[in-house]
């Protein structure tokens, strides 16, 4: 083997799908020993397919139509399933995005690890068990021995991802492929898992897929940018980030929070003193839970302002949203809507004035209904206008959110994630609400789509003098769009204030930790360019 040849070499890889035609076009990629290579691009760019193809794991009808793949000096595209199988896990280990879905819920952690070790390395069960404990220890999982007997649901998301990493590395493959390994995790957990990957990567070649360009630039040595099944640009991470050559790379960079060319949303002035929604000492305790999900929370949202609720999962953000929407009943003295009159509003009145947009644009729209019916649903329920008018209303709403009204007869499947979120927004606006509640409505979107939807939200908010309550785990997003930011932790507000103040001089230790965790490994986020308030290695 040529000592200087990179460990992984992909040359001119093409992948075809019988119905979809060519999906990967002439993809070439190198990754040297000990190198961290990032594969960036939006969903559908072909990043995952390219890496799955290395060991013949492309989903069923997909077929390698051309090109060569080398790991070391072994060529892999000519091998059949039987020859490839023993190489999986041994030549390359995989870590996938969603650790809760990637581990079999009915199998013990130990059996997955031990069987994988026995399968490849010819170890006895006893030796394999020892190897499994070592592997769990190397990913810094506490009490590895008892972890072997546990099931996936007994671990947190971050721990599950550590277990996935242990599983990927248990047969000591030279190549580690991590597909969005931290996307499903909270910021603090994310940075710890990334720390771990970085440490482990020294002994492996790490190929990392991510849609987060700032993360890729801060974490990887070299980057490949993919778009539409092609590699459009590649080079050292630093260079690519500071001097992008391809237009597509540039557009990705421009969409980064803090760099977006769109004017910031933060310009709203509360129009009246009277709050649309006032939360006073809100406390919610779920049945059987030891701790209250939300405890003694105070805040208000006024017309024409954007308030961001920020916190990690389990901090009570969604519980607050559910209380506002009336899904959870809150005491009248804990939650009021002063702008809607003195009495607690009825469910119908509340629904007319308060509308929601949800996180997952795939599950929040009925797949069997045409878009017209989806958007018209609230109009029909509340009898806002006559049938003939309805169509015109829907058309107007769709064009307002940037969709072609002529497509109103199509079903959600015909639309992309970003377009679906526009549909959901149109549905929410159909009621002409005064308070719009967006629960992680931007989290599932690609960065450029996110920027577009954000701009749309801003315009609509200003146009209609809406009160906007944005729920997010992403502090940089909150700082970018919020007039005020409320930081939640374990159901309590730890800090609230004007967005710029919270970002620039956070008063609470937890806010500082969150900011540091988000900035760690990320390049170009506004906080990192300015002060470095975190201690590296934290």
């Amino acid at each position, binding site marked *: 083997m040529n000592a200087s040849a990179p460990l992984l070499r992909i040359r001119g890889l093409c992948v075809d799908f019988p119905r979809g035609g060519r999906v990967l076009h002439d993809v070439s990629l190198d990754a040297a020993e000990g190198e961290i290579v990032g594969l960036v691009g939006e969903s559908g760019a072909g990043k995952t397919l390219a890496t799955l193809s290395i060991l013949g794991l492309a989903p069923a009808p997909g077929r390698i139509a051309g090109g060569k793949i080398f790991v070391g000096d072994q060529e892999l595209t000519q091998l059949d399933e039987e020859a490839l199988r023993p190489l999986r896990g041994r030549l390359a280990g995989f870590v*996938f995005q969603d650790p809760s879905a990637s581990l079999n*819920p*009915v199998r013990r952690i130990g059996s997955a690890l031990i069987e*994988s070790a026995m399968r490849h390395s010819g170890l006895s069960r006893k030796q394999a068990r020892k190897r499994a404990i070592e592997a769990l220890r190397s990913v810094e999982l506490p009490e590895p021995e008892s972890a072997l007997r546990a099931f996936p649901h007994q671990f947190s998301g971050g721990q599950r991802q550590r277990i996935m990493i242990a599983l990927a590395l248990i047969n000591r493959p030279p190549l580690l492929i991590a597909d969005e390994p931290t996307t499903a995790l909270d910021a603090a957990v994310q940075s710890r898992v990334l720390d771990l990957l970085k440490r482990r990567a020294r002994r492996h070649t790490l190929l990392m897929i991510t849609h987060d360009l700032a993360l890729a630039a801060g974490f990887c040595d070299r980057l490949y940018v993919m778009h539409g099944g092609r590699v459009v640009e590649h080079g050292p991470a630093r260079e690519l980030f500071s001097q992008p050559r391809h237009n597509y790379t540039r557009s990705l960079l421009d969409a980064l929070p803090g760099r977006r060319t769109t004017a910031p949303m933060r310009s709203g002035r509360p129009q009246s003193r009277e709050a649309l929604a006032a939360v006073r000492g809100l406390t919610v305790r779920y049945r059987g839970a030891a701790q209250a999900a939300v405890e003694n929370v105070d805040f208000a949202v006024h017309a024409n302002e954007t308030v961001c609720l920020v916190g990690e999962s389990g901090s009570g953000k969604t519980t607050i949203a559910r209380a506002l929407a009336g899904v959870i009943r809150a005491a009248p003295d804990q939650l009021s809507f002063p702008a809607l009159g003195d009495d607690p509003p009825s469910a119908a009145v509340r629904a007319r004035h308060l509308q929601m947009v949800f996180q997952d644009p795939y599950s929040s729209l009925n797949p069997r209904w045409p878009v017209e019916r989806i958007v018209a649903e609230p109009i029909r329920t509340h009898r806002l206008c006559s049938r003939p008018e309805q169509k015109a209303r829907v058309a107007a709403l769709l064009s307002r959110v940037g969709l072609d009204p002529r497509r109103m007869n199509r079903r959600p499947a015909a639309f992309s994630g970003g377009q679906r979120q526009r549909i959901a927004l149109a549905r929410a606006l159909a009621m002409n609400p005064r308070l719009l509640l967006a629960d992680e409505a931007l989290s599932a979107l690609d960065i450029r789509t996110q920027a577009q939807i954000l701009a749309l939200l801003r315009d609509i908010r200003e146009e209609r003098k809406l009160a906007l309550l944005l729920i997010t785990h992403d502090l940089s997003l909150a700082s970018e769009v919020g007039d005020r930011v409320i930081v939640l932790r374990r159901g309590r507000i730890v800090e609230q204030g004007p967005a710029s103040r919270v970002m620039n001089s956070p008063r609470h230790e937890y806010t500082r930790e969150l900011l540091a965790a988000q900035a760690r490994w990320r390049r170009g986020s506004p906080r990192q360019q300015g002060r470095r308030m975190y201690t590296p290695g934290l």
Partner: protein
Amino acid sequence: MLAGLAQRAARLLILLLGVNALLFVALGLAGDPALMLAGEDPTPELLERIRAEYGLDLPAWQRYLVQLGRMAQLDFGVSIYSGQPALEMALEQLPGTLLMAVLSMGLTLVTAIPAGVWIGQRPEAASRRLGAALTAVAQGIPGFVMALVLIQLFVVRLGWLPSLGYSQPAAWILPSISLGFFLAPKLCRVVSAGVAEAMQEDYIRTARANGASMRFILWREALPAALPAAVALIGAQFAFLVSGVVLIETLFLWPGIGLLLLYSAQNLDFPVLQAICFVVAVLVFAVNGLADALLRLIDPRLRPATQ
């Protein structure tokens, strides 16, 4: 744990009371056993005497309470016909029924699970579609029709197998197959649906990425994920299976609890009927409890948190 057991015991008690009350009403509508006992052309005096002897002359609510009190001591009375204690008669027939139940359940498991796994592996493939269609057809055939076809073919036409009793193992074959038809097609469909669903999950991709063979993936990754639904089905369908037992035992003259039930019902032998229903209710309840426990064993998410 103790609270769980107490809750189960309470449920069993309610179930038995319900079954008993229902049966009491149904039997009251069925006819007068004194007429059956008295033979042809009974004199009114004879009927009086028989009614007095069996306590049939008391008002219904009194009879109900008396019977309830006896049942609390597991005393179901004696058979109107043989004079044997009713519970003893029912329990004597239980082994025959259990033998058939175990045989047909075993047969169901070894056919339906592999077939379900095979179909679920690639449900869109032509051969699997055919398999799924056949399963759907099989589900549509009532078990007793299948039994009649099998008897006609193997006993009457070919003369290969005996059709009566269970003294020789060769006679076990047809009843087990026929009874298996009550559950196997349903189980096969549940398993194939569960496996097909599991095969789409991310953790199957993880297993493939770790070099697991297709066989390992199907049996060790996908099937365990499909098992909870299968066990739940068996638990829920067991009572239905008991009705199948009555039919199949009747057709094959299999000396079991089903056959006894049939005779006793024809003869309005109330004490024996009561005893049989008691035994069956306890049996169904026990199987359901077993299924629940098994469910907890194979699906760790249902267990109470220990960590």
